[in-house]
């Protein structure tokens, strides 16, 4: 029996999509394989998240509830996860490779004396788990395993695991003991202010199911509104190539590529992006790629499932209008 503990991350009292994917994946795997799956929830108020975890097919839930978890503090959260993991002694502690997951995984590993493998996109179960991790931004892949029997921490890239259809279960909740932080609240790390950057509608690039992305062929920052309009119709996030970011048209946090975000959406629409190798590296795990570019020899067409040789500035408004029309008809 392999013991898996999944840290179920939440934002605004809701389970994050990336955590839902992991919980569902392991609950389905546990129907056929000798796995014990437990979810760990840490938050100020967890009822909604607990229900959602049940819908992902995971029954056993360890909950640590407390006001100290209202706003994100990496050390306070890491200590709660350490407490939960020490109580349960899983073989693998699995987190989503989100900003929070990335931030706390090595801290938890450092505190527990466990190793860590991050940003995995697939896994295989034999006697133990082995993991597949893209390296050089997806230009190659590495199969990675733990060295011996020590517990291991694993972070899983959002949108990467194969989609599953879990059977909902009635959650069984046990309350965990939250660590006492008296006199040690801040640990030299004081959160002063949180500024929301993205409106509720737009998913973060790394978790978006559809991404509309623009490059040098967009000609200027003013034309990104064409991408935003298309994104709004599709419920997509807007990305940019390094050329567009270096030109100052978009902020760096929207850059897709080896020196930006690595993304794995179902659909990636590249507009005016030639497809430099470092850009392809960041989006090559997209399931379907659509490219619009004037240059028929642009490298992006080599990996596109559907390519249009043409001017993105002219085609985008027509596409957005067609999609709007289509949505109206089907509503």
């Amino acid at each position, binding site marked *: 029996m392999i013991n898996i503990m999944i840290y179920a991350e939440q934002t605004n009292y809701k389970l994050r999509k990336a955590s839902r994917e992991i919980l569902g994946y392991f609950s389905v795997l546990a129907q056929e394989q000798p796995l014990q799956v437990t979810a760990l929830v840490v938050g100020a108020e967890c009822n909604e998240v607990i229900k959602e975890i049940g819908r992902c097919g995971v029954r056993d839930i360890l909950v640590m509830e407390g006001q100290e978890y209202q706003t994100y503090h990496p050390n306070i959260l890491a200590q709660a996860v350490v407490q939960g993991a020490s109580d349960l002694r899983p073989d693998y502690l699995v987190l989503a490779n989100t900003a929070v997951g990335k931030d706390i995984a*090595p801290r938890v590993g450092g505190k527990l004396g466990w190793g*860590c493998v991050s940003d995995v996109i697939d896994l295989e179960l034999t006697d133990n788990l082995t993991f597949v991790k893209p390296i050089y931004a997806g230009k190659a892949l590495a199969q990675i395993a733990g060295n011996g029997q020590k517990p291991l921490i694993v972070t899983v890239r959002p949108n990467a695991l194969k989609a599953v259809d879990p059977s909902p279960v009635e959650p069984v909740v046990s309350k965990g003991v939250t660590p006492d932080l008296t006199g040690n609240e801040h640990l030299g790390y*004081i959160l002063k202010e949180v500024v929301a950057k993205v409106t509720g509608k737009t998913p973060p690039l790394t978790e978006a199911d559809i991404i509309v992305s623009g490059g040098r062929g967009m000609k200027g920052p003013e034309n990104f509104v064409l991408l935003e309009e298309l994104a709004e119709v599709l419920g997509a996030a807007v990305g940019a190539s390094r050329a567009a970011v270096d030109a100052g048209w978009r902020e760096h946090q929207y850059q897709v590529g080896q020196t930006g975000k690595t993304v794995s959406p179902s659909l990636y629409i590249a507009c005016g992006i030639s497809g430099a190798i470092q850009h392809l590296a960041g989006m090559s795990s997209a399931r379907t790629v659509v490219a619009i570019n004037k240059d028929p020899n642009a490298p992006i067409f080599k990996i596109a499932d559907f390519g249009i040789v043409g001017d993105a500035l002219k085609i985008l408004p027509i596409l957005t209008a*067609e999609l709007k029309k289509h949505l109206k008809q089907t509503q």
Partner: protein
Amino acid sequence: MKILVLVKQTFDTEARITLDEKGQICDKDVNRITNPYDEFALEEAVRIKEKNGAEVVAITLGTEEGEKVLRNALAMGADRAIHITSNLDGLADSRKIAHYLSQVIKGEEADFDLILAGWVAVDNNAALVPGFISEFLQVPLANVVTKLQLQDEMVECEREGDGVSEIISLKLPALVTVQKGINEPRYPTMKNIMAAKKKPIKIINIKELQETEPYTLVKKFYLPVSKGAGKIVVDEGGNSVGELMAFFTEKRFI
């Protein structure tokens, strides 16, 4: 004030990756660079030095070829450098790397005020070493920082979360990992490149340090299966949109 900067040598982001006959990553003829995120860390350290005065020490762990990144760091303005020589490559176990770096820092560099590093390396995309080091050294860590300012005994950081940015104040000594956008790294001048050749690099062979086992192992490497090109249409006056709509329908995106 003493600032340590962790630098890593990586493959050029334009490099193509191939496997040799043994299934290992082929590193012949691959141009190597300083991890781009570490250059932001170096630039930030040198700016603090120029503004407030500080000693900047660059540290790397890796093969002898890694000297190149240290010379680059010295040319950008670091005062001296430490090279932990080892045959461990850029894909080695993160906890193990953090163990060795922490050991050296705890030794002769324990009086640091600030450690700066890139938040991630472009080769293994792990983003783990700084987190482990912050635990091993017991110092606060702010990750993915896009703005940084020193104030008395604190460093104020603006960091990037998922869809939010946070203002964090860390008590020194502290560790900060930086993100693209924090600054524009300088190109070293010829004069500074020449001067860097005379700056000291201390070599520490990894065998002199207390050993640790890796926690993870690479079983094998492989290359992604290329799916091949799909359909290409040439647009004339917007006529391609209909075909694209049909493609979206076929793939059930709409």
